[in-house]
């Protein structure tokens, strides 16, 4: 047999030769030192290449990027979700509103309402409030507004409209229609986030509006966690009660509630239901028209010394307060106390609204415990 080539030796070592060929080669190698050396070398190559190739088994991962780190939910998603919910709630309110218009005005008036009343006794019971302080428009004299039951109804009307329109840019067009109809000029056209007042807060304790509010709250619950808000601090500040809530690790919001009684300023958003009010009260028509008929007005009572107490000017003619350093705030009136509550935090308005609803619920629960 002639000397086998290298390929044949490898074939033999790999067991790829037929039994006949194998036997012949084996016999030859035994007698041929040159081929025996070649076989030894081939064995070395086989072993070495196996070893070398093993080193490739710890190949890195990374050419195809691993799964991206989990991201927090985009704040925009919350914003959109909140918008949808508020639109839904608002629609419900409007629909209910139509139905409840049939009710006697006194029924609505009996429930009493106060809109954007600034700074009064924190724990004052609604019954002790006396005549509701309402200034729906400069065209409505304050006295008339505060006493006339019809104006209260108008105020409720305003509250509803405000709720209906408090949904930001998503329903801006519809909102504007509503505004034109009702004479309510909210910040709608100006602030996409629908900043400032939350008219929806007013009906919290109003049975008339309760179902829709609850619907909204329940819907909000679906989108947010339901465990109680964690109070992380109550720093002392003069004249106000401040509560810090932790809404997420590292994220806190500040709830500010005035403690002074001296302030009696009343701020109303827009010309609000002026037409309704005028229809309802003959006095309204005689009212001195201090403000532009269609312009929203901020009215403060003369005894209000501290204009800084007006935390948010929601006049449509003034731009909505722009968030500073990512700080957003919303303000609303707590009907149980008549106080204006302000919620501030470095989170989106939509999220603030959610927290507002939770705070309201917790306050209501606490109040119920106190006065069963």
């Amino acid at each position, binding site marked *: 047999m002639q000397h086998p*080539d*290298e*390929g*044949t*030796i*490898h*074939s033999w070592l*790999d*067991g*790829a030769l037929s039994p006949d060929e194998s036997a012949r080669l084996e016999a030859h190698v035994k007698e041929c030192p040159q081929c025996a050396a070649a076989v030894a070398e*081939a064995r*070395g*190559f*086989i072993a*070495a*290449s*196996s070893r*070398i*190739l093993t*080193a*490739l*088994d*710890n*190949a*890195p*991962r*990374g*050419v*195809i990027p*691993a799964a991206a780190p989990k991201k927090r939910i985009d704040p925009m998603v919350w914003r959109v979700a909140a918008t949808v919910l508020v639109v839904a709630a608002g629609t419900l309110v409007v629909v209910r509103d139509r139905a409840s218009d049939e009710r006697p005005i006194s029924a609505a008036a009996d429930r009493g309402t106060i809109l954007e009343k600034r700074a009064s006794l924190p724990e004052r019971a609604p019954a002790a409030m006396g005549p509701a302080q309402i200034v729906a428009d400069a065209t409505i004299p304050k006295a008339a507004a505060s006493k006339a039951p019809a104006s209260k109804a108008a105020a409720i009307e305003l509250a509803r409209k405000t709720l209906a329109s408090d949904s930001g840019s998503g329903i801006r067009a519809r909102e504007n229609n509503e505004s034109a109809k009702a004479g309510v000029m909210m910040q709608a056209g100006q602030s996409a986030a629908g900043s400032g007042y939350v008219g929806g807060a007013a009906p919290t304790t109003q049975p008339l509006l309760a179902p829709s509010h609850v619907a909204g709250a329940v819907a909000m619950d679906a989108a947010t966690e339901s465990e109680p808000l964690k109070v992380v601090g109550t720093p002392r500040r003069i004249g106000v009660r401040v509560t810090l809530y932790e809404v997420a690790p590292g994220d806190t919001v500040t709830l500010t509630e005035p403690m002074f009684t001296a302030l009696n300023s009343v701020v109303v958003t827009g010309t609000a239901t002026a037409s309704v009010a005028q229809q309802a009260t003959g006095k309204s028509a005689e009212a001195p028209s201090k403000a532009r008929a269609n312009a929203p007005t901020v009215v403060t009572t003369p005894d209000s010394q501290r204009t800084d107490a007006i935390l948010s000017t929601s006049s449509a003619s003034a731009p909505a307060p722009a968030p500073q350093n990512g700080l957003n705030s919303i303000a609303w009136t707590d009907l149980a106390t008549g106080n204006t509550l302000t919620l501030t935090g470095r989170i989106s308005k939509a999220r603030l609204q959610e927290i507002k609803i939770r705070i309201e619920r917790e306050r209501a629960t606490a109040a119920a415990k106190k006065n069963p």
Partner: protein
Amino acid sequence: MADVERLFRTYNAALVRYLTRRLGDCDWAEDVAQETFVRALRQTSIQNERAWLFAVATNLVRDEARKDMRRRKHLALLAEEERDEVVEPEETTLERAQEAAMARKAVDGLAERDRLALLMREEGLDYSEIAEALQLSPGSVGTTLSRARRRLVETYEALQKSREEREKNAAS
């Protein structure tokens, strides 16, 4: 379906290892292996399973490499940059990393056919399977393998030698 499951259980490990050695990236290798088994799903019958799987995987790599070689190169470069920043796991010592780098270089230095034949052989494919997968004549597989092994080992040893010399120079 059960057949593909059996195929997967029988050959996935070898196929992934083969592809990892071929491609130098576990993720990519796993992707190609999966795609190979997906292709197997579409087959009504496969005569020589192992040869078929390795051939399909090899073709997938070839097609993909042809299609987006540039993109891969770029990504590999990025991955390498990132790898430099990433703290290696403990067991990957410097020594092992250097060995792997040299092995990679040596394998990449082989002709494609030699490389594939060698990698397939390492996964246990017999000569007829390698011949089928790579469309070689069965008689040439031995020659191909012997050439591949010799070249691989010689290249690796040369790299090792030059590294040792560099280290010696650096030390002195």
